[in-house]
């Protein structure tokens, strides 16, 4: 008999099984896969032993998802607005981030890389999904996908083209594989037509993908067009 807690979204639809294509509402209840079972078992053991509470785990997850590319954007905008800061960032990225109140001490070694008219850096992790989560939040799905991870090193200009970006002809493309202790933040080229712009105004031109090196920052025109699209 159906109750309010019945997971079946169509409890009274008797021909339900005969027409599974009509069942467009995804059920909340489902079989756990292998890794979900392992994670739950590990969490239970940690709780039983008194090493972690559910509240601590929830707070840790909450902390992970509180990070976003907006943090990295602040670093980039300051670098564009203040060349002396940029120099310090390229010399010692963690110390420079701390100037902005961004504590990156949980990253073993943070490296900032400047894209210029001669050199273009792009970042990949071919072995897994290493990413400067403190500064950029969780990586996009494509960053963790096998096609990007393999093609970024085996055909980097092709991988960029797949993402809609054409690396300038003749530029030295440097694919940085984040395989060990370093995490990388790319400083995109400062867009043309932004002379005299304030740091706050520049902030809006920084994009997540430009900090991974698979795109450029927005031009003022692209930014305006985007604002109109949102407003419209």
């Amino acid at each position, binding site marked *: 008999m159906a109750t309010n807690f019945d997971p079946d979204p169509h409890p009274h639809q008797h021909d339900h099984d005969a027409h599974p294509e009509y069942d467009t509402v995804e059920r909340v209840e489902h079989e756990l896969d292998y890794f979900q079972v392992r994670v739950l078992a590990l969490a239970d053991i940690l709780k039983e032993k008194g090493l972690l509470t559910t509240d601590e785990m929830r707070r840790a997850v909450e902390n992970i998802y509180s990070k976003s590319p907006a943090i990295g954007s602040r670093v980039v905008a300051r670098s564009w607005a203040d060349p002396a800061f940029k120099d310090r960032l390229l010399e010692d990225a963690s110390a420079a981030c701390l100037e902005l109140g961004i504590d990156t001490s949980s990253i073993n070694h943070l490296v900032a890389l400047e894209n210029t008219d001669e050199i273009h850096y792009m970042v990949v992790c071919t072995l897994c999904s290493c990413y400067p989560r403190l500064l950029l939040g969780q990586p996009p799905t494509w960053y963790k996908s096998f096609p990007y991870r393999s093609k970024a090193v085996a055909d980097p200009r092709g991988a960029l083209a797949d993402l809609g970006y054409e690396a300038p002809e003749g*530029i*030295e*493309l440097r694919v940085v594989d984040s395989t060990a202790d370093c995490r990388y933040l790319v400083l995109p080229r400062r867009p043309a037509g932004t002379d005299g712009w304030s740091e706050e105004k520049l902030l809006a031109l920084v994009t997540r993908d430009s900090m991974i090196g698979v795109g450029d920052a927005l031009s003022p025109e692209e930014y305006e067009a985007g604002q109109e699209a949102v407003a419209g």
Partner: protein
Amino acid sequence: MDPRYKVGDKVMVQNRFPPGHIRTPEFVRGKPGRILRYFGNFRNPEKLAYGEDGLPLCPLYWVEFTVNDVWKHKPGQAQDKLLIEIYEHWLDPA
């Protein structure tokens, strides 16, 4: 531990395939590169992954490879590079 290599040194990545938590990508094993930067000394991830302390610390380098030296199908422009972090015990002088 003092680093064995200095910036600009030519190196060859060891071409071996041990099991375990190895951070040297397979596609550069047996390939020639050049030391671009020395990052400092870090705990050995091959040991850390199995609950050990990862000591002694290992020098970690940024090794630069030319894309077209790494792949037979030569997908890059001549100046395109791959920059990969490699621990010293994976490198030989070239």
